[in-house]
């Protein structure tokens, strides 16, 4: 089964992390990723840019048409700032790996099981479920070409 580790941090935690030498952080995260690659469990992951470069925005669907804004993320938001996808044999194994992530106070990993085709078995004839596989194909092709 696959799990996604969703990394979230409060503003305070993000501020605190800026006090730590960036290279030290990269080294710690790198060692963590490497340990999961060496164990054959890591399938992928990405980090997300923080808000400072103005690249982030929010699309709010509570109105029609949806409203695009630079925020707000709320006053006590926990910013989603990266994720991993791992392949493990149990919830407990996912928990073991997640707890090894080098994060500090104020940071959280939300751990979620990735749905599989079996979760949508009753919709397997659905045109869009099949199309989704097509999208995955394009993505995979790109990835293979860039590898």
């Amino acid at each position: 089964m696959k799990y996604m580790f969703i990394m979230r941090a409060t503003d305070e935690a993000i501020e605190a992390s800026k006090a730590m030498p960036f290279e030290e952080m990269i080294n710690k995260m790198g060692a963590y990723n490497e340990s999961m690659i060496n164990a054959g469990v890591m399938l992928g992951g990405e980090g997300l840019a923080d808000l400072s470069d103005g690249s982030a925005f929010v699309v709010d669907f509570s109105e029609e048409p949806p409203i695009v804004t630079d925020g707000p993320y709320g006053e006590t938001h926990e910013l989603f700032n990266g994720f991993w996808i791992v392949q493990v044999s149990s919830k407990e194994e996912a928990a073991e790996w997640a707890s090894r992530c080098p994060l500090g106070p104020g940071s959280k990993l939300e751990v979620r099981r990735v749905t599989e085709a079996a979760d949508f078995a009753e919709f397997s004839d659905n045109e869009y479920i099949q199309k989704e596989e097509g999208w995955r194909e394009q993505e995979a092709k790109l990835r293979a070409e860039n590898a």
Partner: protein
Amino acid sequence: MAGTEEARAEAAARTEATEHSVTTERSGSLEREEATERAAAVRRRLDAVWRIEGARIVAALARATGNVGFAEDLAQEAAADALRQWPDTGVPSNPAAWLTAVAKRKAIDAWRRADRLDERYQELARGLQDEDAPGWEPVPDDVLRLVFTACHPVLSREAQVSLTLRIVGGLSSEEIARLFVLPVGTVQQRIVRAKKTLAAAKVPFEVPEPNEWGPRLGGVLRVIYLMFTEGYAATSGERWIRPDLAGEALRIGRVLVTLVPQEPEAHALVALMELQASRFGARTRPDGTPVLLADQDRTRWDRAQIGRGRAALARADRLGRGRGSYALQAAIAECHAVSPSVERTDWAEIVLLYEALGRIAPSPVVELNRAVAVSMATGPATALAIVDELAAAGSLRGSHLLPSVRAELLARLGRSNEARAEFAAAAALARNDREREVLERKAAAT
């Protein structure tokens, strides 16, 4: 350090004991139920820790003791202690360190009991007692030594597979038994016997000498692939695919690649397994009946996994040492993976790849697969000649593969009566229940 931990564990145990005495009025059965649930939770947690740390723990013990069998015994005893103690004390904050420390103490106790504290062992015992002693942390090559020992040629294939799953994959006997649908006792016996064989043959805890490296690495790759194929197309039993077993093989393959990154065939084996596993979702219907390649819904192939497989094959190719047998098989699987349908598959390329494979790794199964590819590229008549030649040589006797391919070719040539007889013959030889059903249906429909 260890002292504080023990004190903490004791305090935790005392707190729990108090809590227990407060709730004595609760029914005994409820408490028993909770105790069982607690034990099961510990078991699951231990299994997870073992899967991640088991190889390194056993490797460290093997390095310190020079004996993989003894190391594995110690590790198992430590795990048994954990199962007994953790439900009451709670899981320690660093379970792997706890297990290692317990196993180390057991090593020293065992030597004392055996009165073998001669100079060498005294030194080892001192090293084992000192937490920070160098030589205790496994060096990366220790896990590789473990892989080579578990797949050592003095062991039977079954023993190699079980021992690899156990000490490299970190699986318990129960988990291995479940994967192979075998009684737990059988798996335990295999592992005990494997350890005795390693001891009797005085197998050193070392990677092979350069002149043996190639064949020994080939042996390791074969063990992993055998594990995978047993999961991919189970040779017996009622299920056709055991994705969990194939998944374990793939995981161990990925571990191996990080240990020998300069070996193209290790990358190629991972590529082959990723590409074949990408079809799992389409290979069975919800009721478990197999769907053959031609009939598979290709939109259900796992494209992300195909991407990983192709990337692994590209890494093998980039090492620039040409394609070995796994790379050729992966390249064949890649041809299928990138084709939108059976008709639009590059069968001519597949025929070339099978010809190359047949030259470096000749086998009747490869020849039979080449015949199938030829039938698609050129036509069934040419292919039938290849199959008939195989049959005349008595190859694959007793396997359902040859008659089932022959039956398909005869059916395509319109020789229905002969085809029906061949399908029936193939069905009679199939050992997997699901496969037999498919062949019987074909016999009836021809």
